[in-house]
């Protein structure tokens, strides 16, 4: 069933209820916001690399998110099993991993939070933001250079 949702960047959108992802613990800093959806502008029928994790409960709450693999192909966060137990049977076909992106006015200082990824079971529509145990993953991972390399490789295809 469709519902009307107010969003931060896309106005009021009609959203199929099965597009809502439930984060039972909320996300860090917004622990009371538990229902989210992922919004993006399709381009030529394709999904772009950048999307927005939009709160259903709070229209002003929307974070830009990307797949960490576009800037770090070997991204492999180590997560305590118990923290994602409620996402149930995660496997290669249903897992979606996203990281938030911070874009300051000087866009060359764009950074991704590799330390606290969003893990989503796309089948069950359940998600969690968790802290990776990997000491090498930073909360502010600056990736402007990596992004240019990724874009160059994409162009080359």
């Amino acid at each position: 069933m469709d519902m009307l949702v107010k969003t931060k960047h896309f106005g009021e959108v009609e959203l199929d209820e099965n597009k809502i992802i439930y984060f039972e613990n909320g996300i860090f800093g917004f622990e009371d916001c538990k229902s989210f959806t992922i919004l993006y502008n399709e381009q030529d029928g394709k999904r772009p690399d950048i999307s927005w994790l939009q709160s259903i409960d709070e229209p002003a709450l929307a974070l830009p998110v990307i797949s960490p693999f576009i800037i770090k192909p070997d991204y492999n966060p180590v997560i305590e099993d118990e923290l994602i137990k409620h996402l149930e049977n995660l496997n290669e076909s249903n897992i979606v991993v996203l990281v938030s992106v911070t874009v300051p006015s000087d866009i060359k200082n764009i950074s991704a939070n590799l330390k606290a990824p969003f893990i989503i079971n796309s089948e069950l529509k359940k998600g969690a933001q968790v802290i990776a145990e990997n000491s090498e993953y930073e909360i502010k991972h600056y990736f402007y250079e990596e992004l240019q390399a990724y874009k160059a490789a994409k162009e080359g295809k």
Partner: protein
Amino acid sequence: MLALSRKVNESIVIGNDIEITVLEVKGDQVKLGINAPKAVPIYRKEIYLQIQESNKEAVNTDVSVEAIKKLFD
């Protein structure tokens, strides 16, 4: 805040299943051992606060959606 004095190797128990033990005291550093169910997340507070702050920063960007999109095109 409840303040309890403990010596090395002494513990406090929180609820039925969380135990915190003082393992070592060296100058101004204290090493703590924590026994808790795996489902209880334990964070160093500064990391926890930084991640909260990072989410807030990501939300509060001044850069327009179009400009952000263009960065990835």
